[in-house]
């Protein structure tokens, strides 16, 4: 295997709707972005709102189709030149997705939600009717146990706290046997304690199961603490790609503007 993720000059343009006197105009969410992940590391994607973090993350699983460029995950083409690859489903099966807005299905039990991680790897009709085997059920429970919420397996997802739902999404990724976890602002709606547990869990999955993690974060301090590599985006371009510990205040000022000092910089 050459690399986990390979992104080559991906561009995505959105049309900004006309507002008042300003006419509609295109704006580049991603502007010829390229990067690669060759070993299971933890990449923190940072950048101001609208810099293209989420767009980049979602294009990795083909939830967003870009205009140009190529996205390859685990040697499978997710998308190329504005079209989803033929084996995009196979690629997705090995990627876990965690979203800020808790993308568990609220009315289904936590167990069923985690079991949905099997969909990409079992017979589609078995998945359609939810006929999990005994081994699969045990695997789901083991994953829930791993993230520390096995006792809530029978509970509806929408009765769980935000932190528990995010841990459920991580369990779903473990059930998927994901080689890569994509987390889109996973802690943005969580209290600090829950947020720390979710981030620690992502570190744990990365270190113990050798799963690559790409996580978009608003909190620069979280990115510096929990990630080993940081990609910073500004206006759709990568402006920093390097180790977390060499990201300095000067770069942050360049990314976020000069007011960053008071808001984010501090001892961790």
């Amino acid at each position: 295997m050459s690399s986990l993720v390979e992104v080559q000059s991906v561009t995505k343009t959105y049309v900004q709707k006309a507002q008042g006197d300003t006419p509609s105009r295109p704006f580049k969410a991603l502007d010829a972005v390229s990067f690669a992940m060759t070993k299971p590391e933890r990449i923190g994607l940072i950048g101001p709102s609208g810099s293209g973090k989420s767009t980049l993350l979602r294009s990795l699983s083909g939830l967003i189709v870009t205009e140009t460029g190529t996205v390859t995950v685990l040697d499978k083409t997710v998308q190329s030149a504005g079209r989803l690859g033929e084996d995009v489903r196979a690629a997705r099966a090995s990627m876990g997705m965690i979203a800020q807005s808790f993308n568990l299905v609220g009315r289904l039990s936590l167990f069923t939600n985690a079991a949905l991680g099997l969909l990409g790897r079992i017979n589609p009709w078995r998945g359609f009717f939810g006929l999990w085997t005994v081994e699969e059920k045990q695997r789901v429970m083991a994953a829930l146990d791993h993230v520390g919420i096995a006792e809530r397996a029978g509970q509806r997802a929408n009765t769980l706290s935000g932190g528990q739902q995010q841990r459920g999404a991580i369990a779903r990724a473990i059930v998927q046997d994901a080689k890569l976890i994509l987390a889109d602002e996973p802690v943005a709606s969580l209290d600090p304690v829950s947020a720390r547990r979710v981030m620690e869990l992502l570190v744990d999955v990365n270190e113990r199961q050798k799963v690559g993690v790409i996580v978009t974060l608003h909190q620069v301090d979280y990115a510096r603490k929990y990630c080993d590599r940081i990609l910073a985006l500004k206006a759709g371009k990568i402006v920093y790609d390097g180790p977390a510990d060499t990201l300095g205040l000067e770069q942050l000022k360049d990314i976020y503007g000069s007011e960053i000092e008071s808001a984010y910089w501090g001892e961790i």
Partner: protein
Amino acid sequence: MSESRLTALEPPRASLSQKLLTWGVWLAVGLVLALSFKGAQIGNLPSLWQNSANTSAYMRDYVHPDFSSWPTVRMYIEQMGLTIAVAIWGTVISVVLAVPFALLSSANIAPSWIVFPVRRLMDVLRSVNELVLGTAFVVAVGLGPLAGVLALALHNTGVLAKLFSEAVEAVDNAPIEGVRATGGTRLHEIVWGVIPQVGPLWTSFALYRFESSARSATVLGLIGAGGIGQILFDNINSFNYARVSAIAIVIVVAVTLIDIASSAIRKRLL
């Protein structure tokens, strides 16, 4: 400076064009009412109390419902049961048909070249009254409850497909993306991402249509679709108003019970 500004500030006033528009709308409403006055024979309204002697003679039988013979009453209840059976099957068939049609007419599930024709087809089904559909089915399958079942099924398919698809179009996209991101197929997205979200609402809509089907099934007796409605109209035609009154009471009680039960279930669902 602030003083001069204060005196200059005026509350907003409707412009001339806004005023004209308001008066225009009222004028149009008045015109429509006046034009339809004659056709609807609103001028004949006084006859409602001018012929009060006839009305009271007619109503005299109504206030003495005929429950004297138990076999007859039991027959009413059995026929009411038949009518409810028609409503049940009409609704169930319509739900089964409405699910695929609803998904095909949801803009967030199906492509627009499918959505448009399916929606128009549902519009047609919905716009044709059960009674009209019923007469067609009486020709096709003969007199009897089946014609009523099919009429209700077809009409309600149009209604439910619209209600169902509106629910589908309002679902939260995040869980669906969650299913897609695991490598699931489009069908998996619908079964695991969409249906769990719309399930309670769909059930509630189906129960609501069952309530109204129970009422419609009564009227379907008029065109020979059997059940309590047919007995009702037979007795109206033979001027047997004491029996008509008894039948009406059976219908009101049954429909009320169905309404109460169904809305209690619907409340718990949502």
